[in-house]
């Protein structure tokens, strides 16, 4: 009995209204993109991977070996060497620049090198920071190279860099499925909680019940709209992830179940909350109580693995967890077998919530 025409008509009217509402548009489409830009920028660090280190060259002796040494450090592409004038107090300079990483090339470095007399380069650093190890390693490598050359040895051992085929995922790779999950949760959930409670209060549902539109058609139109919104939001975030942060993700058809079931689940859940609560205010509170923990604990912003064990257990009862985990399995790991389990769990939860919402929701009162 359901009429596709009526569903489409309701979809169009709702969609047009949504597009006219700047706040809705912002939270539905723009906000997740802003989040990915902010989080991506915070955690991706320096794209070239260089570690900045301050270097004070106190050597003025000839021949200019120290110059070559510095050039060699720079050429590694590991260090970004910032020169500090020899007249500066080096430790004071470091603290003024909020840095613990520094190198001092002592006076008469070149002369001693030429005379083959021992001379030490000093590396400042905080052993608890990863940059310290990187700088020590690099300086060590270059020093060995110069030592070998000085003793008349020819260039014997060099270093080749290589990567294994499996590139370990970057933070932004986790961020994309997480934020897609976030957007699948937030837009339909907040919107449906609000409009269900609101339409109930101002008797719009009662009015619609006087037309041939059925409540199933009405709900179907909303689900359809939020699926479209989720797909657009997904494309936007993937584009930003790939083009801005060089995310390394795989796009396959296995994404589709999540982009359909997710909005359907949260539309229904939102409608359920709006239906069983007595006022718009209560609906909004209950909606927030459900939404906010799910938003942070489902692996949306941070990988679950960094959370304590008990929080990881909590995550497993949150419906969004399976969507985010599934999206990670598909987008990041390409592990379809594991994703199938997530799809199955998501499907079951979605059907339960959808049926409950459709049953409890009333067009008219007795």
């Amino acid at each position, binding site marked *: 009995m359901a*009429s596709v*025409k*009526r569903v489409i*008509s*309701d979809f*169009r*009217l*709702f969609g*047009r*209204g*949504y597009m*006219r*509402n700047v706040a809705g548009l912002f939270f539905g489409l723009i906000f997740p993109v802003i989040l990915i830009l902010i989080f991506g920028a915070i955690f991706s660090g320096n794209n070239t991977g260089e570690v900045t280190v301050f270097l004070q060259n106190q050597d003025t002796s000839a021949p200019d070996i120290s110059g070559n040494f510095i050039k060699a450090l720079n050429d590694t592409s590991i260090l970004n060497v910032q020169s500090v004038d020899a007249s500066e107090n080096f430790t004071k300079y470091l603290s003024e620049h909020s840095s613990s990483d520094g190198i001092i090339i002592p006076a008469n470095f070149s002369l001693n090198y030429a005379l083959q007399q021992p001379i030490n380069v000093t590396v400042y650093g905080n052993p608890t920071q990863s940059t310290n190890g990187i700088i020590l390693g690099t300086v060590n490598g270059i020093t060995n190279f110069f030592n070998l050359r000085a003793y008349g040895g020819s260039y014997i051992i060099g270093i080749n860099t290589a990567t294994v085929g499996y590139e370990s995922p970057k933070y932004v790779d986790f961020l994309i499925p997480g934020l897609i999950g976030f957007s699948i949760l937030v837009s339909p959930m907040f919107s449906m909680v609000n409009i269900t409670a609101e339409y109930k209060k*101002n*008797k*719009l549902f*009662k*009015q619609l*019940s*006087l*037309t*041939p*539109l059925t409540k199933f058609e009405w709900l179907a139109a909303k689900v359809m709209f939020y699926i479209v919104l989720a797909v657009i939001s997904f494309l936007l975030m993937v584009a930003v992830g790939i083009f801005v942060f060089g995310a390394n993700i795989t796009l396959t058809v296995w994404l589709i179940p999540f982009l359909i079931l997710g909005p359907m689940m949260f539309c229904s859940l939102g409608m359920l909350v709006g239906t069983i609560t007595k006022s718009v205010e209560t609906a909004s509170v209950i909606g927030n109580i459900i939404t906010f923990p799910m938003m942070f604990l489902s692996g949306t912003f941070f990988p679950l693995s960094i959370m304590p064990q008990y929080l990881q257990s909590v995550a497993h009862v949150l419906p969004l967890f399976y969507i985010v985990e599934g999206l990670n399995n598909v987008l990041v790991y390409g592990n379809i077998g594991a994703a199938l389990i997530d799809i199955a769990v998501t499907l079951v939860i979605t059907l339960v919530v959808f049926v409950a919402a459709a049953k409890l929701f009333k067009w*008219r*009162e*007795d």
Partner: protein
Amino acid sequence: MIPIEVTSLKKHYGEIKAVDGISFTVNEGEVFGLLGPNGAGKTTTIEILEGLRKREGGEVKVLGLDPWGKGYELHKRVGVMAQGFTFFEEANPREAIKYYADLFGVKANPDEILREVILEDSAKNLFKNLSGGQKQKMGLALSLVNSPELLFLDEPTTGLDPSARRAIWDVIRGLKAKGKTIILTTHYLEEAEQLSDRVAIMDHGQIVAMGTADEIIQKHGSAERLEIHGSEDLANYIKANTELKVDYDGKGMISVALNGRIDALAALAAAEQSGLGWGEIRTRRDSLEDVFVYLVSGTIDEHGEIKTEGKTRTLSDKGGR
């Protein structure tokens, strides 16, 4: 076929008898007004007829259908403007009409409907930006989309200013002229009088009077009276010299009950004979308002609340009649 037939309709909310065994019919092409204060049971009655509420007793036939069981069928053939009509904020009247046309699966001409309710100028203004009167007109427009045989208008002008109210009345008169059968509820006496062919006055869930305004006045009002500006002496003189029933209000107004118009001649002849001075004369009948005041023992204020001797009657006073 009689569009609406109601027999012994009952609906209770807990202890409160919202509708207490009312019966009436609405004939084809008629505008029927349900008039009464807030809480009289008007909206409950009309919502039962629309199929929005379930009745607890009695028989209801709307276009020959039981509205509760056959609501889905019925809604395709009737138009409803609910009390305090609202719509999606971000839609304009033209879009709303197209939306309703799609839902009903009918071809509708938005321009024609907008012209009918005098809303062409706001066709593209979003609902949230419309004035109260324009919103009500949009509600009327939507109730017309499916070319209904029967229209339900629940308090179509409540909360509107007088000029917006008159504008809605014009629209309703236009619909009446096109032969639509209309049932409307109102707590505005003037509205019921202006628009309705027949009126049912409701109070405490019961119909306390029904018919054309004249019929109601005839039945429940007092007889025609002659009023003469004059002194108490004159009143006594007329009383002494005629068979008539004469009252004096203590403030210079003599009132003579007339059983026929010939009684007026007798009263005036006596007055002339008396040699006492007398001023302006007029005959007066009870208005619907006078009758209404007797029937529901109070007047209705702007918000539909009953006022009895200066105090507002509250819901808790009800039920015990």
